[in-house]
């Protein structure tokens, strides 16, 4: 079965330190990859996506993510965390060539940035 794994339920990081939120996937073919962020009582907001090309993609709010085909991973990173980055982060994939626009979501990782 196709799936997306976010192995950490919660990540704690001190403000100003680099952060990484992990995502690995198991889907057929080369997928489209996405990160979304959810703030309390809000819907998900798009951060960034990987479709093709450079393995390092940059997105909103200073976030970036690196696609690693051999490790089937798409980890979210930011060089210097802010308290305002505290939120719930979701990784999602669309299997390329699946003829669908339907996401497969990970279970989410709660990021807590400590002042």
């Amino acid at each position, binding site marked *: 079965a196709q799936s997306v794994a976010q192995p950490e339920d919660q990540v704690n990081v001190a403000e100003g330190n680099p952060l990484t939120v992990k995502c690995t996937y198991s889907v057929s073919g080369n997928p489209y990859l*996405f990160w979304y962020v959810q703030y309390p*009582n809000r819907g998900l907001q798009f951060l960034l996506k990987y479709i093709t090309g450079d393995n390092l993609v940059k997105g909103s709010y200073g976030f970036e993510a690196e696609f690693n085909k051999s490790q089937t991973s798409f980890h979210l990173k930011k060089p210097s965390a802010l308290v305002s980055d505290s939120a719930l982060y*979701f990784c999602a994939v669309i299997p390329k060539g699946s003829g669908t626009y339907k996401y497969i979501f990970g*279970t989410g990782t709660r990021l807590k940035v400590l002042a």
Partner: protein
Amino acid sequence: NAGVTQTPKFRILKIGQSMTLQCTQDMNHNYMYWYRQDPGMGLKLIYYSVGAGITDKGEVPNGYNVSRSTTEDFPLRLELAAPSQTSVYFCASSPTGLAKNIQYFGAGTRLSVL
């Protein structure tokens, strides 16, 4: 710039009651989706639509129905509510073309069935 609007924000239902969750978008997007979000489970797709008059089942459609009579509106109907339908429901939309993979979400409807 409203985007995707969901009503109501909160609702408590008794077992066996019915209700409709409303979703409307003003971005002229053809694709619309309904998800439910349960703690620790991520988002599960209930139904989706690729245009007015066209709907299809997602991963967890049982107990729900949808219709899409206009581009703007995509209501989700719960018939005979059950405690297992206690969840947060999100509506989303996406455009056609190269940007179709990016979805825009409403703020959600928190539903409790007691």
